[in-house]
């Protein structure tokens, strides 16, 4: 399914997340990922929302989100925007092969090891959602046991 990325600037105050997610639920938009954080101006917060749907559908959300009194602006990001996600993962490495597999990933700067404790390794991975999916696929294929796999959700910035 097609994905659209919305960048929404809002007044940084309580209750805004509830209004935004509530609106998307009411209008039956499917949220693929949603992240919030303060901007450089601490009175302003920024949402990056990935919704599943066509551009036309995403355009409908723009007006609706704008109607929320606390929303400053809503923008649909172009396809060539820079998109990043962070994964923190704890993996269990049971074999030499698996160890080598991960070392290679590290060399390719795909992942960065944060700590290692016996068989357990904690890695961090910052990349596009697609690259992250690919990596997940490959570690599954390598039969590496995933103890924990946590994604930050997408943030994106326009070019």
């Amino acid at each position, binding site marked *: 399914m097609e994905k659209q990325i919305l960048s929404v600037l809002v007044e940084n105050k309580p209750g805004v997340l509830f209004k935004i997610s509530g609106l998307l639920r009411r209008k039956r938009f499917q949220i693929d990922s949603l992240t919030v954080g303060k901007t450089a101006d601490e009175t302003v917060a920024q949402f990056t929302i990935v919704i599943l749907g066509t551009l036309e559908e995403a355009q*409908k959300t723009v007006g609706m989100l704008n109607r929320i009194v606390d929303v400053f602006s809503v923008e649909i990001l172009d396809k060539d925007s820079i998109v990043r996600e962070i994964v923190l993962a704890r993996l269990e490495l049971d074999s030499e092969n698996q160890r080598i597999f991960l070392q290679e990933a590290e060399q390719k700067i795909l992942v960065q090891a944060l700590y290692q404790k016996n068989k357990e390794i904690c890695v961090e991975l910052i990349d596009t959602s697609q690259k992250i999916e690919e990596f997940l696929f490959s570690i599954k294929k390598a039969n590496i046991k995933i103890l924990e796999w946590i994604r930050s959700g997408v943030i994106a910035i326009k070019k």
Partner: protein
Amino acid sequence: MIGADALLKSLENQGVTEIFSYPGGSVLPIFDRMPHSNIRRILVRHEQAAAFAAAGVSRSTQKVGVCLATSGPGATNLITGIADAKLDSIPMVAITGNVFKNLIGSDAFQEVDMVGICESIVKHAYFVEDVEDLPRIITEAFYLAASGRPGPVLIDIPKCVQAGEVSAELVKKIERNELFEMHLPGYFHEMSSDISQEIKSIELIKKAQKPVVIFGHGVVLSNAEKELKDFLDKTGIPSVWTLHGIGAYDGNKDLSLGMLGMHGTAAANFAVHHADLIIGIGIRFDDRITGVIKEFERQAKIIHFDIDPSEFGKNVKTDVRVCGQIASTLPLITKALPKNSSNNWKDWQKTLIEKKQKWPIDGRKKGKLTEISVIEELYKKIDQDDVVVADVGQHEMWLAQRFIGKKSRKFLASGGLGTMGFSLPTAMGAAFSGHKVWSISGDGGIQMNIQELVTLVQDKIPVKILILNNGYLGMVRQWQELFYDKNYVDTPLFNPDFQKIGEAYGIPSFRAQTQEETQDVLEKMKNYNDGPILCEFVVEREENLFPMVPAGKSLGETLLNKEESIED
């Protein structure tokens, strides 16, 4: 000065003269101070009625009505009225008490999360954290409610804030009625499209052969009746209206074709179905007026004027979107069009005038008293400044089809939510407009807020109450007749004696069963202004409402009666 005083004083500063309210534990500080305020209290007998009455003030005047209820059940009782206001874009301020701040979130006695519950049915909601914020919030709430696309605003005030001491500095400001600076950095309600949209509209109108205007509530809400009249008078474009557009333009003109939609007039539905250009002015193309969307968009280009950009393309595909205040966008177009532009649609005008004559709104039948005949008599009696408040059901549509006024804010109905029980409390609020008010309900709907009869008596509010008793939940019965094989499940009503009920409340009450009695009683009602007056009209039980566009059908398939459609 405590929070309650600050609240009341701030409301006075906003020009509030009456509040529809009901007391309870969490609003005691406010009620304690109310006698010191100039604001009149109207003690409703159910909070739902308070919300409707507040909106009734807003619907019939240009003021913002206010209602007040206690926390928990008082607050939840407001909800139907708040939702009704939201769906009809009615400015209103609803104030609720809440439990002490330190108890919030603890499932305290009579605690509900009103801000959360109301999120989808208000334009904005406030939870007042600090008494010092109150005057600013009141200022913002009234501004938000009435500006841009209007809507209800909720202010939820914990009891401790109502009772909290106000700083000396703030007291001074409030007493001097100083302006409180608003903090609404995200609120942009005056968005407007660039001029290219107006230019495109002009081109499309010039090219059109069969244009039609649909005007609606937006014209009324933005007081653009004059601009609409200038446009229609100059261009000679035939016009139809939505339920809430009634009265925004003179309905008596030849090219005024009537209300559009599911129970619109045949001529109006015909015109929109066959048009090559549809100009929607202050409307939202909702499903009650479009019929099946694919057919609606089929052959016409669509120009849409509205203040709310999120309405564009929401329901129908539009070719041109003119965003902004209608009073400022429409005149540009009126000006740019040549005087003789109507030459292009002379044939079209002729066709529509013929259709209008061919399909008059169906008249009364001889013999028994019917709802239609009561309504037609009623309309002979009312003056052009009188306000008519319908409830929901068959009678509402019969009333709407026949209301051919020249003024807006004179026909009130629950459009978006379609709430039974709307009429009586809304009429109570509308009576504060200073005009004569007629409340018309079915035998079903009247029971939903009948407790307000005593409010009308106690406060001597002059509402003329008509109960059209057909012994059925008529609108639903009709659908059962047409689409469920006359399987009348729970639509026949066992009714009380409405005349006696009225009398028990101390209201002069009548019953009419014939044409003559009807005329008599209506005359009496018209001339009585000392408080409420009531009459039950016992009418034909199974009268059907037409024209009708059945669900899933197009406007072109409008049924004139059970057998014939406008296509035949």
